């Protein structure tokens, strides 16, 4: 069988026995679930059932590349998946070059099974795959791990996925760090640490085959125009190209979207700004594999003063957005914070929202110095913020509690502090506005992977008037794009989820879903078909996305997640943003959820996909599985927070 796009091979690594094997990728699974995020969940559903606990031997860690990875559309996107410590889908994407190298080495997926007794690392160089002792890597930070692997192998262009101390110490949402400042997979770092897998290094020299080169080139050039600063029709492209999420602070501030002081306030003054950041700290461009944006990543460097010598690459995280959450006004501190998190593989959101929660608790007198190891923990104290981040990484004192994640920490502390814990399904929020961006509130609530904007991005749709008349959209953009109204959000969010599942499975970067590429999926279909040689139509293509999301839902349903788990923090439901007169979202969330489950073909009471819905998507195996387990008869009500 000849494969185009897909490499056609799956690599399996059993850490307990050291056995390494390759098998042919299932063509049916590839057609049904594309690759990357989609294929990962197809394998996880079949191989890691509800009888397996997250920290059991049987939990698996899957790294997925997709059919378009290794072509310039793939942008180095990798999806990492495991059963999250809180049992939902621990899934996350990251950029860089790692995933492209995996394809050049000739693999679509790497499935890591069982646990090693002592720390090991995995080396993949084309057909040469071996597990090596990692006692010298364990306890080192991710940048040190990368440097040691590079020196040990003598391969300059090797790319490394590794865990840092946060993963090794099993912090709740630890991430996997990819060369050098890319990261993703909240909770995957935790499981990787539990499996004692220090790093996975990969270098490939093979070819990613393209079925129809001329068509692919034409489709790519068409795609590329969207991101050319001279021709773009998207106002975000230029500013995003240079300032990334930093440029959003002003917008967030004007609209009351910032989560200042643990989202108690929607305004943060005085603020850090992107111009100051660019001027003082940015030294040169830095990008993922074949990213068409000139500088979506930027190399930063603190040249003098506090933390001088700190360097790294900045992308999505949005330094300026991070600062308001804990109320600090110092760029050197947020840059240092990012560097600490990347070295430790600690999720920035976990650290920020956990510490912000602790600051709020401290200021309200819920906790005091006897809880915080004698520290004053107040908003705006940048040094305390960094000290506590370090304690989380090392799991020292109060940091040991915060390392559990903010939801679990609040349970331990109690005394009403749960109210200030901003997390969903056991994963901390991202900096997304939920009180007035109604589709964002719904998008975050119903996510199978906890708060993850990439699953329903973007919140800034194009002007409905600019949408070509020949496009047959499954929602009414004039209604659905109204941000503070529950109208037509079910159909919109369903469309966003399904279409983004496709982009994350091809894969490509979610920031490429700009301008009309976020609405019109014909260009994506042509890229997919011309690369893989498939010839499905648009309906078939979109249905692949629907199938992926339904399988992800089936996965968390099987783990016991129900309608009650699809929610947003009480602060967003019940408290207004006083500075901007924004009312709380209140009952509108439940109204939108009703709407969403209905358009999905899921039961409204339970959020379980109906039998006919699953059968219509060709998910007969899930129907069998649900019947065998009595899922449709169960009276479980969820409650996984």
């Amino acid at each position, binding site marked *: 069988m000849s494969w185009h796009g897909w490499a056609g091979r799956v690599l399996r690594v059993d850490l307990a026995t050291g056995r390494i094997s390759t098998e042919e990728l299932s063509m049916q699974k590839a057609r049904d679930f594309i690759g990357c995020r989609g294929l990962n969940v197809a394998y996880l559903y079949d191989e890691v059932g509800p009888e397996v606990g997250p920290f059991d031997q049987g939990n698996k860690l899957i790294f997925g590349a997709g059919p378009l990875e290794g072509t310039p559309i793939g942008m180095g996107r990798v999806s990492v998946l495991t059963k999250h410590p809180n049992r939902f889908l621990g899934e996350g994407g990251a950029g860089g070059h790692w995933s492209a190298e995996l394809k050049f080495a000739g693999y679509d997926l790497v499935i890591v099974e069982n646990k090693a007794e002592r720390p090991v690392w995995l080396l993949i160089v084309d057909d040469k795959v071996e597990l090596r002792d990692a006692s010298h890597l364990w306890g080192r930070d991710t940048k040190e791990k990368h440097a040691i692997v590079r020196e040990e192998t003598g391969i300059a262009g090797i790319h490394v996925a590794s865990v840092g101390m946060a993963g090794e110490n099993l912090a709740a949402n630890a991430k996997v760090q990819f060369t050098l400042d890319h990261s993703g997979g909240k909770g995957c770092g935790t499981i990787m640490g539990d499996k004692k897998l220090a790093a996975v290094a990969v270098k490939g020299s093979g070819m990613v085959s393209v079925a129809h080169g001329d068509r692919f080139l034409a489709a790519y050039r068409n795609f590329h125009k969207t991101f050319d600063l001279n021709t773009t029709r998207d106002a975000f492209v230029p500013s995003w190209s240079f300032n990334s999420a930093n440029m959003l602070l002003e917008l967030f501030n004007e609209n009351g979207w910032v989560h200042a002081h643990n989202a108690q306030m929607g305004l943060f003054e005085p603020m850090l700004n992107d111009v100051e950041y660019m001027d003082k700290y940015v030294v040169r461009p830095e*990008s993922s594999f074949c990213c068409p944006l000139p*500088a979506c990543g930027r190399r930063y460097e603190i040249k003098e003063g506090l933390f001088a010598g700190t360097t790294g690459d900045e992308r999505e995280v949005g330094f300026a957005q991070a600062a308001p959450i804990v109320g600090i006004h110092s760029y050197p501190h947020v840059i240092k914070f990012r560097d600490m998190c990347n070295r430790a593989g600690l999720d920035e959101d976990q650290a920020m929202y956990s510490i912000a929660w602790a600051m709020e608790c401290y200021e309200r007198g819920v906790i005091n110095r006897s809880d915080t190891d004698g520290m004053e923990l107040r908003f705006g104290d940048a040094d305390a913020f960094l000290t506590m981040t370090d304690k989380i990484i090392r799991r020292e004192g109060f940091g040991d509690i915060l390392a559990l994640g903010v939801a679990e920490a609040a349970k331990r502390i109690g005394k009403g502090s749960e109210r200030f814990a901003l997390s969903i399904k056991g994963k901390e929020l991202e900096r997304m506005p939920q009180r007035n961006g109604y589709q964002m509130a719904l998008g975050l609530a119903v996510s199978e992977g906890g708060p993850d904007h990439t699953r329903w991005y973007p919140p800034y749709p194009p002007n409905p008037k600019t949408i070509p008349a020949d496009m047959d959209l499954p929602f009414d953009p004039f209604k659905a794009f109204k941000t503070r109204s529950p109208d037509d959000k079910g159909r919109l969010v369903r469309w966003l989820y399904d279409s983004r599942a496709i982009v994350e499975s091809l894969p490509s970067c979610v920031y490429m879903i700009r301008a009309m590429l976020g609405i019109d999926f014909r260009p994506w279909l042509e890229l997919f078909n011309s690369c893989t040689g498939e010839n499905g139509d648009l309906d078939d293509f979109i249905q692949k996305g629907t199938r992926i999301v339904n399988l992800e839902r089936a996965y968390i349903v099987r783990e016991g997640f129900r309608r009650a788990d699809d929610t947003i923090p009480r602060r967003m439901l019940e408290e207004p943003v006083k500075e901007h007169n924004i009312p709380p979202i209140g009952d509108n969330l439940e109204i939108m959820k009703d709407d969403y489950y209905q358009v999905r073909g899921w039961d409204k009471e339970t959020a379980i996909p109906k039998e006919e819905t699953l059968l219509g998507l060709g998910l007969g195996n899930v129907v069998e599985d649900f019947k065998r387990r009595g899922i449709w008869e169960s009276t479980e009500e969820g409650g996984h927070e």
Partner: protein
Amino acid sequence: MSALIKIAVVSADLCSGCRSCETWCSFVLAKGRGFRPEESRIHIETDPQGVLNIPHINCLEECQLKHEGDPICVEMCPTGCLIYTDDEDLESKRALWEQARQDQPLFRLIVPWKYPYPWRPLKRDEL
């Protein structure tokens, strides 16, 4: 006297390490059958700390896939780090970029002739 037209690097400081040039070059060499950067005539070397990306060009023939006169590596370079020009023009472009990045921090990331700043203002109905 100007030297032969060639592919040149304005400055390694402008290379984002994206490897678009490598990847597209290999597509041309494979006659459109796929992407294999290993075989490319351009390689980006990244130093261990990720501080600098250095493009190495080993191209001796005319590119088979030109767009508006530029070979595909130059066409696809997102920052304008690679140019297709002669020695004399290369020197003047380097000087132009040096000045531009002193004047406006944005030009630490791109070259001014590829993306004249400010960009075309978007019309209201395009937003």
